[in-house]
């Protein structure tokens, strides 16, 4: 099953690649329409839009999913129901493809809901308590986005059809479009885990690592960004885009800080994903959809690779995800650490790896256009924080001493996993330049002063030095976190926002329902029905029994008494 789906998806990727090259070179875009039913004046039409953006995204999605399925053949080989897992992943890919190619809202809804539902099934795959809680958080946060898209469907019916791409040019200043844009932005924010809804992404790391590699790095969380890119013509002058800018910049900053306090390997990578998502959303809301798309694709490559390396490391560490137990792995697992290093450096934006092209272009566009001080500071600060936590991670995992056990055997030569990582490694090295040559038919004109141009490098060097110094631990090192406990817990726990989604929502209702249950369900409603009536009847029955248990002569005499009374009434 693994091999079959791997080959199928790989060839699908190749087909998409060739069509993408053909379409973008010739400037083609194809719009298929399939009329399902036409009845009087109503017709149901299923439409598919294939332009270079959807083909490129489909190519990347199928590449990553084929590699992940091949990887999970070895990663999940002790799983009894592996076919179930593969089928879930394939359904996920199908929903994603449906979302990518659809120009109308109903098929977007099908893909969107499918994504949410299947990501829930995949997050709860291990079926323990933590997975259940994480799955519930994921599903319910995504559900808000589903509701928003449903409402958008309702509102778009004002225009007569659900093919939204036709209405952007004509209806821009309409009140209906205002409402629609608001709801679309909220839907994208839930899916891409921006600030009010950001609690599900670190929690969803309870999923198996291939799932995290596929879902939480490249496909599910970028669906929101993709939706906004599609709707970009509508949203570009609206007020909500500025709100989105503010929230996404804060997301980027917050997750960068929180990743510095984390010690769980997958959570660090999840918060790094969150930070890059914030970056994508912010550059999108600044008005550059193609750069956002570019960063989406390159980020997918190296983040999936990073998750897969994390999976190999977790397997080797006997399923321990805590980085304090790891160390010095670069000596023992050279190939995996090669992949890990390249993806980490690509994440930081080290020159001429794939992440550099997209990230550097973003930062230069932010510097070149005139935005306000907060945008500027937070962008550069977040870039520095990215380097900070990356170098801290590399120090803990690769360079410091090995902390797990006295006797160990670190086995790297699982070539199924390694080969799948090499594919992504190749793409992670080259996709930056390759995509920039394809997507941007002419380069952006950017003219910056010398120090501003080097600002990226200054921030990166600062971040790397800080990352090195923070993780320099010895036996006698103090835990500086305890000195600033309140501030540290605020920054570490994602500024206490997950409590809004979890404890804060349920506390009031659970408390209230406890009061109701104790006082009404087990209290008054028992007295007025159930036990109360039973007690009344029982007392009556006991009372009756006093009359029943009597002397026999009393019965006979009472009969005679009755007759005497009747006689008296009759004969008087």
């Amino acid at each position: 099953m693994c091999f079959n789906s791997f080959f199928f998806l790989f060839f699908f990727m190749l087909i998409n690649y060739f069509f993408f090259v053909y379409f973008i070179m010739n400037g083609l875009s194809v719009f298929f329409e399939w009329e399902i039913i036409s009845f009087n004046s109503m017709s149901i039409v299923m439409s598919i839009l294939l332009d270079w953006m959807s083909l490129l995204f489909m190519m990347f999605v199928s590449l990553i999913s084929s590699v992940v399925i091949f990887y999970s053949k070895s990663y999940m080989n002790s799983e009894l129901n592996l076919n179930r897992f593969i089928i879930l992943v394939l359904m996920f890919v199908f929903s994603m493809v449906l979302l990518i190619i659809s120009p109308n809202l109903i098929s977007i809804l099908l893909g969107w809901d499918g994504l949410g539902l299947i990501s829930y099934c995949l997050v709860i795959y291990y079926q323990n308590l933590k997975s259940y809680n994480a799955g519930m958080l994921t599903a319910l946060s995504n559900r808000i986005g589903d509701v928003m898209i449903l409402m958008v469907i309702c509102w778009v019916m004002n225009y007569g059809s659900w093919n939204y791409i036709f209405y952007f040019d004509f209806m821009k200043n309409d009140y209906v479009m205002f409402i629609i844009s608001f709801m679309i932005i909220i839907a994208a924010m839930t899916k891409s885990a921006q600030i009010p809804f950001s609690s599900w992404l670190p929690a969803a790391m309870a999923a198996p690592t291939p799932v995290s590699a596929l879902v939480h790095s490249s496909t599910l969380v970028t669906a929101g960004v993709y939706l906004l890119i599609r709707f970009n013509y509508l949203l570009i002058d609206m007020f909500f885009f500025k709100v989105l800018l503010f929230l996404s910049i804060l997301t980027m900053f917050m997750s960068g800080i929180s990743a510095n306090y984390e010690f769980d390997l997958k959570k660090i990578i999840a918060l790094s994903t969150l930070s890059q998502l914030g970056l994508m959303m912010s550059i999108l809301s600044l008005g550059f959809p193609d750069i956002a798309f570019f960063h989406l694709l390159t980020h997918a490559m190296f983040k999936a690779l990073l998750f897969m390396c994390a999976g190999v490391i977790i397997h080797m560490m006997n399923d321990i995800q805590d980085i304090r137990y790891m160390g010095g792995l670069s000596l023992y697992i050279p190939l995996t650490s090669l992949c890990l290093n390249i993806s980490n450096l690509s994440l930081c934006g080290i020159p001429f790896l794939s992440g550099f092209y997209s990230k550097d272009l973003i930062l230069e566009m932010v510097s070149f256009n005139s935005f306000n001080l907060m945008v500027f500071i937070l962008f550069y600060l977040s870039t520095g924080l990215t380097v900070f936590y990356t170098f801290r991670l590399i120090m803990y995992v690769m360079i410091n001493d090995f902390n797990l056990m006295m006797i160990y055997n670190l086995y790297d030569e699982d070539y199924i996993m390694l080969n799948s990582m090499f594919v992504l490694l190749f793409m992670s090295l080259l996709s930056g330049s390759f995509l920039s040559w394809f997507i941007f038919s002419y380069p952006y004109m950017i003219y910056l002063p010398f120090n501003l141009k080097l600002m990226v490098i200054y921030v990166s060097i600062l971040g790397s030095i800080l990352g090195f110094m923070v993780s320099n631990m010895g036996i006698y090192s103090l835990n500086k976190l305890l000195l600033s406990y309140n501030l540290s817990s605020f920054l570490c726990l994602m500024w206490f926002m997950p409590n809004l989604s979890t404890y804060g929502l349920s506390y009031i209702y659970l408390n209230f329902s406890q009061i109701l249950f104790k006082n009404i369900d087990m209290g008054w409603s028992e007295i007025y029905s159930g036990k109360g009536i039973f007690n009344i009847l029982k007392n009556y029955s006991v009372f009756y029994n006093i009359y029943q248990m009597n002397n026999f002569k009393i019965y006979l005499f009472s009969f005679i008494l009755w007759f005497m009374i009747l006689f008296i009434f009759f004969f008087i």
Partner: protein
Amino acid sequence: MNNNSNKMFFLFILFFSTLISISSNSWFGCWIGLEINLLSFIPLISNSKNLLSVETSLKYFLTQSLASINFLFMILIKFSLLKNFNMNNIISIMMNSSLLMKMGSAPFHFWFPNIVEGLSWMNNFMLMTWQKISPMILLSYYFNKNFLIFMIIMNLIIGSLGGLNQTSLRKLLAFSSINNLGWMIFSIMISENLWLFYFLIYSMMISMMISLFFLMNMYFMNQLFINNMNFFIKLNLLINFLSLGGLPPFMGFMPKWIIINFLLINKFYFLIFIFMMTSLIIIYYYIRIIYSSFMFNYFKMKWVNLLMKNNMSLINLSSFISISSMILSTFIFM
């Protein structure tokens, strides 16, 4: 009755006496039938070796003879003082009272649970079914509607409330019999045909249950919780109890349904309320009996062995009849 020709003889006279009583031309003949009924029932229930049954037969004799004497007296007063057929007077109340006492209906029912406690199951079956025929038919000849409705309500309430606190199966069936008497007396007031229908179904259900208890020799509730009972016997018990309580898919719902239909059409709303609520209480204590025996799993007692009896086919047939007869009876009208 183990090949006892005495008992057969008295049984024959018992049947015959009821027929005399209900088919006679004059009230005097009715009274004669009632007397012969009493006289032939006493030898059936008395067993001189057993002190309890002697005492029971004596109690039965005392109450029934008192009622018969009163009945005779009221007949004579009616003949001598009243020359009309108006049923709403005090003589009819007094005649009805004596007949009610013969039946064991409230408010003159206090002898009924006592006596039922002292009889064996087969004698109980006679007492609860056959002995009710002639007083009820005599009741239908001359009844006072207002008095009877009051008595019906008392029957229902006492039948339901009295049974709540019982553990003896005989007393439980006695109180349920009192409750069903309420339904039956009301059906007399609707139509005699309906009474016959109700009575036949009631006696069929009672016979199934009593035969079940007789086969297993069970007299008290704690004997029900024997795990060695065959599953089908337990199932039959469950179905019969529910049918007796009047639960819809079973047979016992049908006569109650017709009576409720009549009550609704003629707007007897208060009476319907009392019928329904007391039925609920009755079903509650039936279910309380059977759910423990049916659903809980007690430890198996090795020294009591209730295997499949020889006449399982009868038990299966009775279960089948209880379950399906209500639906099959609609096929009569096709």
